[in-house]
């Protein structure tokens, strides 16, 4: 259970997984935010209308994923580092997974690192395709990783 382990349950993760049809269209955000806390930068940072207006600042984010254009602005704005992005259209066998990153030194683009799951367990080698500063310019970075498709919803961190 998330409140005891810090790791979201399968059920929670299933609920925020975009539909296969949406995944087939290109990059889309995965918002792993499961606790009502007073926080709304995902909504206020999003320029594409993907995040719906908050009625109460404690609401969980609600999305219209068809509006997500994959810009990644919300990933760098989320104080909880709880937003990720998956692009399943990258290749036949691989997906792009974008994660927020606040560790230095930054991994080098093109290098191979170890993909970790939500418990920090080593899963599989992944390639760092892109390293870019967040749109918020707040010191957070976005790492885009090339990940075998079957791990696209498992890899959420790296060890470099």
């Amino acid at each position: 259970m998330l409140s005891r382990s810090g790791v979201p349950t399968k059920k929670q993760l299933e609920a925020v997984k975009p539909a296969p049809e949406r995944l087939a269209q290109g990059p889309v955000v995965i918002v792993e935010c499961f606790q009502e806390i007073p926080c709304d930068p995902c909504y206020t940072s999003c320029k594409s209308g993907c995040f719906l207006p908050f009625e109460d600042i404690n609401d969980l984010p609600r999305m219209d994923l068809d509006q997500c254009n994959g810009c990644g602005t919300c990933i760098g704005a989320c104080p909880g580092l709880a937003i990720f992005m998956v692009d399943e259209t990258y290749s036949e066998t691989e997906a792009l997974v974008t994660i927020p990153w606040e560790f230095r030194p930054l991994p080098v683009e093109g290098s191979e690192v170890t993909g970790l799951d939500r418990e920090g367990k080593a899963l599989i080698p992944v390639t760092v395709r892109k390293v870019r500063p967040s749109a918020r310019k707040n010191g957070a970075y976005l790492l885009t990783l090339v990940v075998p498709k079957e791990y696209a919803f498992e890899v959420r961190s790296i060890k470099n």
Partner: protein
Amino acid sequence: MYNTEILVIGGGPAGLKASLSAAEKGALVTLVERDGHLGGQLVKQTHMFFGSKAQYASERGFNIATKLGGQVAAHPRINVLKNATALGYYEDGVVSLEVEKRFETISFRAMIMATGAQENTLLFPNCELPGIYGAGAVQTLMNVHGVVPGRRVAMVGAGNIGVIVSYQLLQAGVQVPAIIEALPEIGAYHVHASKVRRMGVPIYTSHTVLTAHGRERVEKITYAQIDQNRQPLPGTERELEVDVLCIAVGLTPLTEILFQAGCRMDYIPELGGHVPLRSDTFETSVPGIFIAGDAGGIEEASAAMVEGSIAGLCAAAKLGYGLDAYPGALAAARRELDALRNGPAGKHIRSGLEKLAAPGEVKG
């Protein structure tokens, strides 16, 4: 003797906002800060803040300190006394100070107490060994002075502070082999917990540290699972080699001067200990003494900032400043504060505040 209209004690998030909001309404403010720099605990906060734009969401705490500290320092109606510790409150309404190692006094027409909080400690065998730190000290070492406390740090406490400092330790290249939490659930925002989990840090809820081992300094700890009565379960003891044990087991409001001033106080566990009774304008039972931030109850910095704004507004209004816009500004700030506390995460603070009587009320 110094003289001011509004004395603000404490230059953290609440005190900075209180100073700005009172000065913007026209009051002359003196801000007294114990440290050599403004910002209080904000200067150590490297994580992005929650909340909304009004409370600087997505900005890092130390950047908020720079921003607010700069506004305060540049404000023509705010006089800042750094390296200045408030020592005591006297019956004639004077506060004594140590300023840059000199003894001074200050008189004022209203005072805003924004003294914040102090860390709680934990008692266990060998808890006095070198290498056992409070989380605040670890943050000061790392984030103010750029010094890591050790190589391998066990954390006690999975509240926001324990989990955030664990993450900061990881960022500094320090191993964190365990976060040990006595409660059955993680107190930190779950997103913070998920951040350290995916970096490989285990969180042991319903566990406690039993003892520390070491001759000159901590070398090892024993921890164990505990039952509902917080008693260790035999056979669950485990040992962990560490060179630092970091304690993050909550905060207690800093209220000595409020006690001295004769403010009516009540013990409210949900608010972290003894806190002053206060009106809906954040005035304590002693007219002219206002409260803001953690000194009035342990909460997030975002709430402390809004409370500071309200206390500044109300203290200024008490002296006749900013009366035209006062009701509207007060209502807007109150809505902001209520919104922050409105969800399940604010349940604790709401129930604490409900228990706290208004200064005029007699509690049954």
